[in-house]
């Protein structure tokens, strides 16, 4: 007997059963795609971070290799950064190997023609050193620096001469000083933002002019790290070292720099330091 209604019911059950695997596979596929889209950005970011980290690693390794080549300046930097307090008291402990380098360099030093005739030009080459403002700085820093470097004050007769009018204009000058400090802070802030070596060089020169040699040394060092081909930066760096009592390191730095550069200013300064003309 043909029971079509029962047959239809059974057929419906069969169809539902046959569609279940298809339905499940579609659901799984959709959920898979959904999860993929959900976690794709995460995977992307992690891979990006990994690549950035890898890149940075590579960069640092490259930097390290570059810095290794510049053996002596690097060692000087590290020494100064690690032991800043010692440097202030001009009793810097120079590593034995750097000293060895210094002695080796001394031994292999070849005499070259004197360039004293360039001395007159030197002052013009440092446009940032403002003679008019210099007395103000000296006055403010004199008390600080007198105990550590008394010879420097006595060595600057011109400065003492300039001191007289400064004392007359105390009020007005104190205003400019504040302005100058705020300008310097502004430049430092800008430098921290964009890491422009020109700004750090400017700051280094300014601090040098203000006789804050530790700071000028630091900024010159930063400038050298950012761009190792700026003559002025190396000169300020070496000058600051001299002012901090590190004559040997200063000469060593200049000599190393002159191996890769033909800077006349650096040569002049080196000769002056060696001859004791610059202290």
């Amino acid at each position, binding site marked *: 007997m*043909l029971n*079509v209604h029962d*047959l*239809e019911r*059974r*057929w419906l*059950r*069969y*169809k539902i*059963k046959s569609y279940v695997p298809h339905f499940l596979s579609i659901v799984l596929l959709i959920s898979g795609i959904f999860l993929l889209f959900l976690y794709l950005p995460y995977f992307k970011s992690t891979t990006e971070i990994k690549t950035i980290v890898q890149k940075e690693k590579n960069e640092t390794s490259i930097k390290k290799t570059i810095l290794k080549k510049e053996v002596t300046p690097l060692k000087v930097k590290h020494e100064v950064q690690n032991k800043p307090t010692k440097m202030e008291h001009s009793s810097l402990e120079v590593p034995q190997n750097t000293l060895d380098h210094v002695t080796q360099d001394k031994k292999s030093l070849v005499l070259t023609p004197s360039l004293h005739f360039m001395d007159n030009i030197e002052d013009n080459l440092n446009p940032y050193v403002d003679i008019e403002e210099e007395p103000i700085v000296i006055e403010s820093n004199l008390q600080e620096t007198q105990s550590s470097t008394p010879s420097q004050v006595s060595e600057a007769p011109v400065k003492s001469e300039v001191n007289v009018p400064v004392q007359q204009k105390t009020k007005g000058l104190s205003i400019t000083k504040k302005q100058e400090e705020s300008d310097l802070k502004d430049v430092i802030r800008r430098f921290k933002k964009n890491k422009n070596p020109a700004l750090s060089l400017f700051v280094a020169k300014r601090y040098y002019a203000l006789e804050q040699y530790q700071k000028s040394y630091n900024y010159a060092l930063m400038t050298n790290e950012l761009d190792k081909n700026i003559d002025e930066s190396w000169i300020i760096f070496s000058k600051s070292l001299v002012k901090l009592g590190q004559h040997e390191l200063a000469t060593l730095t200049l000599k190393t720099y002159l191996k890769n550069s033909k800077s006349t200013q650096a040569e002049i300064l080196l000769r002056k330091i060696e001859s004791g003309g610059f202290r």
Partner: protein
Amino acid sequence: MKSSFYLSSKEVFLDVVDAKEYVQLDRVSTLYQSLKDSVKKPLKMILLYGKPGTGKSMMLNKLYEELKDQQKVIMYHTPLVDEVEFLKSLARDIYGVRPFEELNFTQFNELSEHYEFETTPLVLLDEAQLYSTSLMEKIRLISDARKIKFVITLHKTEKEDIIAKEHFQTRIWESLELHNASPAELKIYIQKKLMKNNCFDVANMFDNKNIKCIHKLTSGNYRDTNKLLDSLFSLYDWYEENQPTKINYSNISTKFIEMAAIRTGFINA
């Protein structure tokens, strides 16, 4: 009237071995021609084998129908399991002798010596796997004497293959294997069958999708296809009478095919 149309279509697929219903398909036709050629050769035994429902009986029946007017051909649809009964049947059908007493194998051989035929008599044995081993041995000996030629059909199963190996391996000169139909062959089979019975409209309702569905359910087995289509047209007949709106007259409904498959047990639902 449409209702009678589906009923007549249903009758087409009744599982009856009738040579008139034999459908010629490319592969089957080639096999049939090979069988006819083998019969003409002086071979002692011809084996026709294949899975159940592949058309062995139908082919044997067709051969009988074609040769019965040309030579002495005897066909046994149902196996004669008893040896004496089998020999007595052979004596009666081939030589026209009706022995009153029991006829043993030696007596049958003596009897056969007295008769000569222009063409060796042909005996067609369907479902030979049902014959006993001893009787199969006798059949082999009779065929060796070249007094009677045998065409036997066997189901191709693992067990029956062993029987074939034991009894016929060295005796059979020709063996032909029948296979299930391919989808293309199945389409021709269904449509030809329907058209033979003037069911042209219904024959045109079958498209490739329907055939694919039927082939998937029956694996191209002719007997299973007949069974499924018989059930399908029963359903169509019912819908035609009770819910004619559910019938699409341009195509055979896959739903109805599946329902017929559930009814016949091809789908377990």
